[in-house]
């Protein structure tokens, strides 16, 4: 089972990519913890929101094959 993860702003710079598709299971939390370790992201989960398939979701969302996940760091639009 694989999911696609989208990166924005400083997460994108840190990861060095816009997106990646990778094998994953468990929850969105589990995915972030693994990716945080891999890419050395500075943000704790409590500083982020998360979206699944274009909709805001909770951290305990159980991943399904093909899910598109986005981690939303603190915003600064406007």
């Amino acid at each position, binding site marked *: 089972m694989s999911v696609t993860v989208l990166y*924005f702003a400083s997460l994108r710079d840190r990861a060095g990519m816009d997106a990646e598709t990778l094998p994953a299971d468990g929850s969105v939390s589990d995915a972030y913890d693994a990716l945080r370790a891999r890419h050395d992201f500075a943000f704790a989960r409590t*500083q982020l929101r998360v979206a699944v398939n274009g909709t805001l979701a909770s951290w305990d969302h159980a991943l399904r094959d093909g899910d598109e996940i986005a981690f*939303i760091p603190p915003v600064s639009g*406007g």
Partner: protein
Amino acid sequence: MSGFALVDGAIDASALRARLAHDGAGGVVVFEGVVRDHSDGRAVRGLAYQAYAVLASSEGNRIIAEARSRHEVAALVCVHRVGELAVGDVAVFVGASAAHRGAAFDAVRYVIDEVKRRGPIWKKERYADGDSEWLHPR
């Protein structure tokens, strides 16, 4: 007309203003967020905005709907620019028309406050000293 949109070119405020016209509307309020030449005491040369487009659009339209449910407006639009911007460029336009001016003021203010608070849009400042930085205020 009502709605939220992201654009990657210049915002044409006059054209957007024209879309707010409504014979029953006695008041039109417009907010434009403009790139400033300074930020937190540092000289700014320009900005880049990045958005999670699909979520920014759905959140933006949700914010517009919330504002319309709270304030009686005839039209309410918000357009946010993404990509590279220079000092003086318009980054975001919010406009409302309403029979009564209070509703137009309140709706525009609600939309810009909420878009800034919730919209998945990020600003990268380019400073005069060559440095640049994504802003993640908290």
